[in-house]
């Protein structure tokens, strides 16, 4: 997709921003996240994560050297300017997210935006950024349509729906080769935009390979009982169950599996709920062998990821989850681009973002790199398949990244 004409509303980018006046004036970035509302938990975690990234960028962290801007203090090419984040609460509302974006751009004069967790809010907030000619980096929103709008100022570092579908089908093809049946796939998804869009992407990816989904169950995530769904699965006897679920429902599913004595041979959780640190804590002993996707694993003790996780844990008492890590990664990419631009003019930042080419070694997530196509999508975005073994998830596929052996079928509880 080519960069489109910006039409009648195109305006020259805001020229003289205060950040340019003094060399060491802080560089302001606006972050729009759900700090309250249904997704408040995720938004708060992202806020903690990005605050950690700020610390890594603004103060020297030589031990994290491969990460962009870690070793130095501030943005070297802007005279060591510190990065500052202006936070905005999107309250889970697309309209509020849009107000946030406008306020951050016109009142706080931020040079770039990031966020906004919910795809719907990323959609409306980035539309404002587009009209104002301010770069917007989405580190965590996965809806496919975000990068199908022909926007010039929108960049997404995270893998999105179609990537996940591809990942699961590749993985299942590998499992099939080991001799396990994977013919009947069931998708169980919560019915807000996250669940619906990811389930749709997986279904499409399956269709692209000439496979069909045997059973699709859509449910409301705030229900207190999931036994009917589990009974329906028990009845349908699928080989693979893919859950696209939030936290409370993921936990309920595992509990209900146990209650009803049902063990599907392969259980895959699509990130979100399965990745919440609360999940292994609450039902780790009932969900042994559950698979999950993640772009982040702490890894070996001396790895960068391990150290970052340790820093995060020190601050929050929790392990870093996938969503937070992807948001942090997006923020790293944005700051790196601003630094490379050597200026805070939006055009310069945009050009630097478009020219981003970060290798996997300089990332904190398991992407194969960061390189944007013309739609702003990171073409090297990638996830790993991880498996709950004991108290924690370990990477099991692709084999090159695996630290533990894939153990199937799903064991659940003992």
């Amino acid at each position, binding site marked *: 997709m080519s960069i*489109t004409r*910006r*039409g*009648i*509303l195109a*305006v020259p980018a805001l020229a003289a921003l205060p950040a340019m006046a003094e060399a060491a004036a802080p560089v302001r970035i606006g972050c729009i996240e759900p*700090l*309250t509302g249904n997704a*408040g938990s995720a*938004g*708060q975690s992202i*806020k903690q994560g990005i605050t950690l990234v700020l610390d890594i960028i603004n103060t020297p962290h030589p031990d994290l050297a491969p990460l962009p801007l870690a070793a130095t203090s501030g943005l070297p090419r802007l005279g060591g300017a510190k990065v500052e984040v*202006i*936070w*905005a*609460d999107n*309250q*889970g*509302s*697309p*309209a*509020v997210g*849009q*107000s*946030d974006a*406008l*306020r951050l*751009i*016109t*009142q706080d004069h931020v040079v770039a935006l990031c966020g906004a967790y919910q*795809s*719907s809010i990323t*959609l*409306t907030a980035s*539309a404002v950024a*587009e*009209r*104002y000619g301010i770069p917007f980096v989405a580190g965590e929103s996965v*809806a496919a*349509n975000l990068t199908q*709008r*022909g*926007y010039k100022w929108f960049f997404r570092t995270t893998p999105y729906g179609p990537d996940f579908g591809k990942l699961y089908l590749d993985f299942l093809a590998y499992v099939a080769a080991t001799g396990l049946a994977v013919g009947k796939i069931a998708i169980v998804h919560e*019915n*807000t*935009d996250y*669940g*619906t*869009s990811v389930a749709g992407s997986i279904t499409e990816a399956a269709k692209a390979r000439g496979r069909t989904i045997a059973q699709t169950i*859509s449910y409301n995530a705030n229900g207190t009982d999931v036994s009917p769904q589990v009974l329906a699965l028990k009845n349908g006897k699928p080989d693979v169950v893919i859950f696209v679920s939030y936290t409370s429902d993921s936990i309920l599913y595992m509990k209900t599996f146990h209650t009803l004595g049902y063990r599907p041979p392969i259980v895959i959780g699509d990130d979100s709920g399965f990745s919440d640190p609360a999940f292994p804590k609450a039902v780790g002993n009932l969900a042994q062998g559950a698979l999950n996707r993640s772009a982040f694993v702490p890894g070996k003790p001396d790895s960068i990821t391990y150290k970052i996780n340790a820093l995060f844990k020190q601050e929050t008492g929790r392990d870093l989850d996938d969503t937070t890590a992807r948001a942090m990664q997006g923020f790293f990419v944005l700051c790196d681009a601003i630094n490379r631009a050597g200026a805070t003019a939006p055009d310069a930042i945009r050009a630097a973002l478009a020219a981003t080419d970060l290798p996997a070694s300089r990332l904190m997530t398991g992407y194969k790199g960061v390189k944007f196509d013309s739609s702003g999508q990171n073409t090297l975005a990638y996830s790993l398949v991880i498996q709950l073994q004991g108290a924690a998830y370990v990477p099991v596929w692709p084999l090159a990244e695996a630290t533990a052996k894939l153990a199937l079928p799903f064991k659940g509880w003992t």
Partner: protein
Amino acid sequence: MRASLRRVLIAIAILLAIAPVLTQDAFYQRIAALVVLAAISASAWNVIGGYAGQVSFGHSVYFGIGGYAALLAFTKLGLPPIAGAPLGILASFVLSAIVGLPSFRLRGHYFSMATIAIAALAGLLVTNWGYAGGAIGLMGPATPRSPADLLFRSPLPYYAIFLVVLAILLVLTWWMERSRMGFYLRAIGSGERAAASLGVPIRRYKLYALFISGAFTALAGSLYAVMIGFIDPDSGFGILVSVNMVVMAALGGAGTLFGPLVGAIILVPLEETTNALLGGGGTGAAYVAYGVIIMLIARFSPGGLAQFLPRIAARKSPRAA
């Protein structure tokens, strides 16, 4: 007394009309546009909820219909979103007739409950309606294809459009207030038994009121979708959408011409600025304050802020023997 009151309020309205032009700041201009948008739906609610006293908690249905009509017109027919507004209004008439008539038999809390349930039901149906984007919602044009798409960088054009609609609605309400219809609605809201004894056809007039109220709420929904460029079940049919209309009208004074506008002028900037000042902290402090303010109003001024005005007027009048 009341005439001079009206003059003051009209002055406020004029001030409101020119206020955003005075500031160059797009964020304040946007707040002004949102105030007017909120005032449209709250004033529309006011026709049935305030004047006729039928406390609907389901007006999000109309708002959602309007919003979806606009973006369906865009995504399915390739029309400019605003072209869907008439369809939304048409659908609101049909819905009013289907849903209003049986619900009007219910009084007080029962009516409110029925409207809540209908709105919740509508939201669920749309969530499960794949054609209309299901839970993912619908997106407006990403970039303007023609001026008719009404995609502007500056909030001012939106403000102007909203203000025209609000002005039409308020003039209509003002005219209604002075005509037989307005008298009948207020009589119904005050006491159905007495109104019926004077020959007021109660259900017919409730339905008329719902037609007007629903149509303008649907229009507000369309305008919302045009400006925001996105609608999903929650932002169209969510219970908070209804509640906001009720709270604004009640705060300013339900059943008064300018009450909902006053409510919007107070609440929208309050929400936006508390979110701007406190929202980044993520503590929810903004809503805590919001909740306390609402409780205080309910406790100490149950008739809304407008209540104080006629109170004074009444106090100054001589008592009849």
